[in-house]
């Protein structure tokens, strides 16, 4: 009985030409988004790879220079796009693509896509995630709004129930039928995306990528299922198809249009972001209390000097086996980096607090939950961005210290002239970014995951139970 209802829903939906037309449109958009995403991914990735390679070569082939000069010459970190970010650009278009890394200065990540666009980009981007997050739910609503109301309007529900099935059984049957239909629309695109991902090469195949992609798809399937059950339940609670539809569309607008923006804006209003200017000044002031690597006449430098002289048992800096300039630089770098990192972490914490509003709102809105999970899996979320920035900063610090070490060991005190051979720079490792694993990505989104599962549990238990309150006649 239940099976036959599911089958009936499945077949009659496929025979509904309007639904088929809509599905074809959605499918086409999904395919278009996949192609567009891949194209944009490849363009940006290539651009950044070429740029990274160029600067790496430039660094390795640098002329003979003084090491501290080299430290200021610095390096660039161009943020590589994560492999499956072509499915969900996430924040990538709004985050800077390049960070200039030099000695004792932390620069901002510059040149985001959004800065290079007119306000057009603010209308949203054509990505697979957009289609999956916003359009498929709309398709589901269109598919399911009449699940019960239509049967009520035509009077078939009472006949159906008089055959000895319960409302809940009818509901599950319909959910099963609709799920099959949705799968039919989504599956081709997901299969194509996977094929493109694994077939076109250029991507490194590894277990991590598989798990990210699988989780990505799994989250969306859960999300669709939640929307299907939600739509069927709401249809059961309404008497007329049109009111059921309007309610569902209202929910869609609230979920997908209003709350994402409202929560993000609310977060920014509640927790004030300090300006970079302010932050720089604070860092500068705190650093000034420490050691200035460029100023050896300073009190704190004097203390280090005395300590070193004592340790090595010599009287003057010139007699030290190591170059005091380099040591002082290293101490200064260590201090300023620590101060900067503290402030950067504070800033990150503020951003995190702002974002938490929208993360916790995921408990009320499955769209937000799946959005965060999707970006997380695609590697285009906030955590990945911060991860990159931290890695860049780490690299910057290590490189500076390495160069300071060279200065300390290979140069004499007070030597500002000697240029070390260009070969020295070849020994320094270029910047290479390793994206963190799927497990790490998922661990940043435990709340969103809980929210999604909670929604799943809620609609399947409470939702289905609510159907019992449906007015039949």
């Amino acid at each position, binding site marked *: 009985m239940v099976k036959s209802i599911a089958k009936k829903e499945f077949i009659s939906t496929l025979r509904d030409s309007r639904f088929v037309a809509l599905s074809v449109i959605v499918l086409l958009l999904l395919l278009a988004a996949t192609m567009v995403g891949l194209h944009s991914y490849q363009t940006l990735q290539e651009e950044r790879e070429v740029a990274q390679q160029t600067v790496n070569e430039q660094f390795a082939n640098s002329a003979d220079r003084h090491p501290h000069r080299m430290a200021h010459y610095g390096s660039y970190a161009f943020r590589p796009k994560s492999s499956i970010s072509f499915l969900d650009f996430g924040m990538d278009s709004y985050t800077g693509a390049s960070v200039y890394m030099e000695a004792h200065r932390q620069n901002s990540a*510059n040149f985001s896509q959004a800065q290079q666009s007119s306000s057009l980009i603010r209308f949203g981007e054509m990505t697979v995630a957009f289609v999956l997050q916003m359009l498929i739910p709309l398709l589901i609503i269109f598919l399911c709004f009449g699940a019960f109301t239509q049967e009520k309007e035509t009077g078939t529900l009472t006949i159906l129930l008089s055959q000895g099935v319960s409302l809940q059984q009818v509901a599950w049957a319909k959910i099963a039928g609709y799920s099959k239909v949705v799968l039919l629309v989504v599956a081709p695109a997901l299969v194509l995306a996977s094929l493109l991902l694994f077939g076109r090469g250029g991507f490194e195949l590894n277990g991590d990528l598989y798990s990210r992609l699988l989780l990505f798809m799994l989250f969306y399937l859960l999300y669709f299922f939640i929307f299907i059950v939600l739509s069927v339940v709401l249809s059961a609670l309404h008497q007329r198809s049109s009111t059921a539809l309007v309610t569902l569309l209202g929910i869609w607008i609230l979920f997908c249009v209003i709350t994402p923006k409202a929560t993000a804006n609310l977060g920014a209003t509640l927790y004030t972001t300090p300006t970079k200017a302010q932050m720089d000044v604070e860092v500068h002031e705190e650093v000034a209390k420490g050691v200035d690597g460029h100023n050896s006449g300073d009190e704190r430098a004097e203390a280090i000097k005395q300590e070193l002289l004592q340790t090595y048992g010599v009287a003057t800096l010139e007699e030290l086996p190591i170059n005091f300039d380099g040591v002082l630089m290293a101490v200064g770098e260590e201090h300023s980096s620590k101060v900067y990192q503290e402030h950067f972490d504070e800033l990150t914490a503020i951003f995190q607090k702002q*974002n938490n509003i929208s993360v916790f709102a995921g408990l009320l809105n499955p769209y937000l939950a799946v959005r965060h999970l999707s970006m997380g899996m695609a590697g285009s979320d906030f955590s990945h961005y911060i991860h990159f920035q931290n890695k860049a900063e780490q690299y910057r610090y290590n490189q500076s210290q390495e160069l300071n070490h060279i200065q300390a060991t290979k140069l004499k005190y007070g030597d500002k002239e000697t240029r070390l051979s260009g070969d020295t720079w070849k020994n320094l490792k270029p910047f290479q970014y390793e994206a963190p694993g799927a497990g790490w990505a998922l661990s940043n989104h435990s709340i969103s995951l809980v929210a999604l599962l909670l929604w799943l549990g809620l609609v399947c238990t409470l939702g289905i139970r609510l159907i019992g309150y449906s007015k039949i006649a």
Partner: protein
Amino acid sequence: MRNFRILIKFEWFNFRADKGLLILTMLTLFAGIYGIYYGTTEIERQRENIKTLDVLTAQNVEEMKQKFPGDADAGDIGYYHSTYAIHNPDSWASLSLGQRDINPYYIKLRLLNLQSQLYDTDNINPLKVLSGNFDLAFVLVYLFPLLIIGLCFNILSVEKEQGTLPLLLSQPISLPLIVGAKLTFRIMIVLGLALILCLVAMLWGQVTPDIRILLWLSVVLFYSLFWFSVAFLVAAWQKNSAFNAVTLLGVWLMLTVIIPALLNVYVAVKQPVPQALDLTIKQREVVHGGWDKPKQETMEKFFALYPQWTDTVEIQGRFAWRWYYAFHHLGDVAVADLAGEYQQRLHARHELVEELNFLSVPVNVQGIFNAMAGSDLPSHLSFLQSATQYHDSLRGFYYPFLFKQVSFTHADYDKEPRHSFSSTPDFTSTYTGLYKLVISVLLVFFIGLLVFRIKQ
């Protein structure tokens, strides 16, 4: 006319008694108020931050004075001292924040190479900018159409579905009169709401009262009429409410999300901007290459370009500030072409969007709002231009000290030029946009009228 008034009166009764519609309207009103609140506080915050920059500059000067108690070498000052190029928000910016959250509204400048400083960004939370601004423009561009759709999707179909149409039509009134009255009533509600919100926003934001009040209100009027025309066109098809709702929402989605997203892709492909990374890489190469080149070569090159500084003594020793600034300056000269091209490409992108915005009325209207509020990409580019000029004037200020070997005294800090830039509204874009908008309204309305005639 009498019956028209009666119909409107009873539309009001119906509206008043319909909880759903009331909630929808109230929600829009609250969203509007929140949008205004958000927009004004955001701009207020930017103003506060800009004010703080003055304090920061003053502090920096104090620090300089302590660091260099006596007469100083201007080279040291140019190196350690920083000022800010400031992009003041227009008084209208609180109504439409545009790109002001993405593009920095101040740039910290030192006398060094400009191109390595010009593109630094402020602290931006990417999730926030990804989600966009909940300002009045958002409410008007996105949510008002939804309100209009909510009010109008069943304008005619509901009479059929609840069966009141036969009884209504058995009265001496015509169908066009009924539809006209219903539309008029809804237009009054929506425009009333829009007017209230806009006036509140203008008062709250304390906008400069100029022609833009009229322009803004006209844009809102025509934009609302555009959506009413769309709703009328769909209603004229005489399908059921469910069909209308889905169709209208589909049109909304098409115009506010899908077409803009596709346009964005098209623009990115048609007008790529690869210059940014090239620019940043090249300027480093040139500037740092300066250290390795013979000083004389650098100076000759510099003097060839700026003969006014030529009459100076030859540089002796390892380091001289004027040589340092000369090769920094030459770094800018070397990438001037790339920088110009970069900004030109961004302009071209914007212009391409302006050319294509007839494809989506919301894109056009958002463009008009941003142009009026001076918060669009061209405004930012003008700011970059202005910041460049400011940096030039800083050079003009410091170079005499450096090249004529004059000491920098404490009194000189006050003579240092300061920068302040306020974007101006782009009226040309506004008028073109408004003209396109009116055409769109007329086009859709007449198609609607045609369909209505045919289907009747």
